[in-house]
């Protein structure tokens, strides 16, 4: 393949190859891209096995009823969904059978959860290393201009659809860096939530061996509540994340696979 193109831009200029070169922006370090891809099946595996573990002893419960003797809110949700979509099995297991390994799979779910948990920690370490090696961490740090910029972005997002319907122009607010303030806030928070999920997981796994960690979450049940909340936040983040990347276009998605983007700021070659 063309080896000169792989080297730095300065080396390219004097050689002046016959075919026209185009400017490309370096985006994501290879370790960031790899861990980003691994994260998808790992998080899915953790949620699927985690809910099968949760099934054995739900944290969030109300007083027992005839249809739901354990008072498990997720069983209530299953009953409601089963009444809409139908089921051949036990309606209170509807949700557990579809978004988890299923009821009565505790031993299997625990083993798989630990497998995915160890891989998740490795994945997180690789991600952190990629941020450090590629300098990407600088683009994620909060800054003083964030609140104002975040409000401008929210205003922009709220106006997108009305302006599209009215066929009026609705310019994107100017962005000073790699990410806008909302992205920066999310991309800065998510790794911390992942870390919190890992810490609360260890607090539950070894509350007697790591009592200081258990105390950091008040007690054993506190760690379970935090762990569950982390799952909701990480899972909930993925939905707008995927929608917004899809809305932003092919270049953004490709940048997370290949590491480069054709959207160069201040040139005509913008994507």
């Amino acid at each position, binding site marked *: *393949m*063309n080896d000169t*193109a792989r080297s*730095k*831009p300065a080396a*390219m*200029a004097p050689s002046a*190859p016959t*075919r*026209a*070169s*185009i*400017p*490309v*922006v*370096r985006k994501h370090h290879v370790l960031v891209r790899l861990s980003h*891809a691994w994260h998808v*099946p790992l998080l899915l*595996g953790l949620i699927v096995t985690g809910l099968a573990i*949760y099934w*054995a*002893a739900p*944290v969030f419960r109300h007083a027992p009823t005839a249809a739901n003797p354990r008072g498990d809110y997720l069983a209530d949700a299953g009953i409601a969904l089963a009444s809409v979509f139908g089921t051949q099995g036990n309606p209170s297991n509807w949700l557990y*059978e*579809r978004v988890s*390994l*299923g009821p009565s*799979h*505790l*031993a*299997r779910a*625990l*083993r*798989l959860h*630990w*497998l995915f948990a*160890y891989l998740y920690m490795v994945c997180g370490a690789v991600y952190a290393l990629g941020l450090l090696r590629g*300098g990407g961490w*600088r*683009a994620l*740090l909060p800054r003083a201009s964030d609140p104002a910029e975040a409000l401008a972005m929210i205003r922009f997002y709220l106006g997108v659809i009305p302006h599209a319907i009215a066929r009026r122009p609705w310019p994107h607010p100017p962005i000073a*860096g*790699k990410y806008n303030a909302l992205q920066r806030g999310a991309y800065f928070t998510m790794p911390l939530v992942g870390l919190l999920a890992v810490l609360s997981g260890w607090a539950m*796994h*070894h*509350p*007697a*061996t*790591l*009592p200081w960690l*258990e*105390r950091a979450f008040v007690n*054993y*049940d506190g760690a379970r509540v935090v762990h569950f909340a982390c799952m909701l936040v990480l899972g909930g983040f993925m939905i707008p994340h995927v929608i917004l990347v899809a809305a932003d276009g092919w270049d953004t998605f490709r940048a997370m*696979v*290949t*590491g*480069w983007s054709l959207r*160069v*700021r201040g040139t005509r070659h913008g994507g």
Partner: protein
Amino acid sequence: MAAERKRPPVNRPSPGEWLRRVASAAAERPEETFDAQPQWLTARSRRDFLLLGAGALATATIGWWLLPDRTKRLWLPGAHDRLDSLAARVGLTREQRERQLERVLTFDDDVAEVLYSKGRAVRTYDRPDPRPLRNNYHGRTPGPEHVVGWRLNLSGLASGRAESLGLETLMSRFARHDMNTRLVCVEGWSHVAAWGGLRFADLIAAFPPSPGARWAALRSEVSLDGRGQREPYYVSIDLETARHPQTLLATHHAGAPLTLAHGAPLRLLAPMKLGLKNIKALTNIAYTAAEPADYWNERGYSKYDGI
């Protein structure tokens, strides 16, 4: 110029200057661009997407292999048999899966053992949870018959003899210890409960295990299955855990003698282990050199179970 003269001669940055340096080191750099030929970009892009696709395919195959059969049937009712035989063709059989998952479990147990230090005390609490402690016998709760004339049978002792001790002997011969500790179930629930009883360590000191013994095989002969048939329950406990000062052979719960639901007349209380190791209605202790069988380990759970 005047400002420059005011600076101290030693080049020590002021806190403000230091903060500015940190801020500029952490400030986002301008985006880095390079020039590339479109052909090179296309080739690179093709390679990276092919790698992504291959990775996604491999991940989906492994994910399928790891799923329980019931979930596969539910998700892909028509095709699960064919997909299973495809996975088996690349070596992803059910036997392989169990072997690999066993290794995960062993790895996790090894990590737990490295983290654990035998001298560390388990957290104790000022008062137990007010709710009643749940009876989590997986089968039926044994009836009261066995309590009359109950004896604890010891074997694998240094003396070479088998010992049989009544409850009165155990309670009068050994000091009573009380503690409020958290019982953590593998299912995920936990309960701070008040326990009283003798230290396992005291029993071991009075009836030393044979030299070379590293394990205690604890057994309840009176345990029942779900239909009320006799089904002995057994756990393995390493002797270091047994000798921990917070490992009790409990005779009391919540200030009263153990009820049948909680393992009358004597149960193990090892708060550094999951509840499933805390065997109820204990009848036999055998000291062994090799690790003895463990009821729940035979059913897919960890055998270390240290929390």
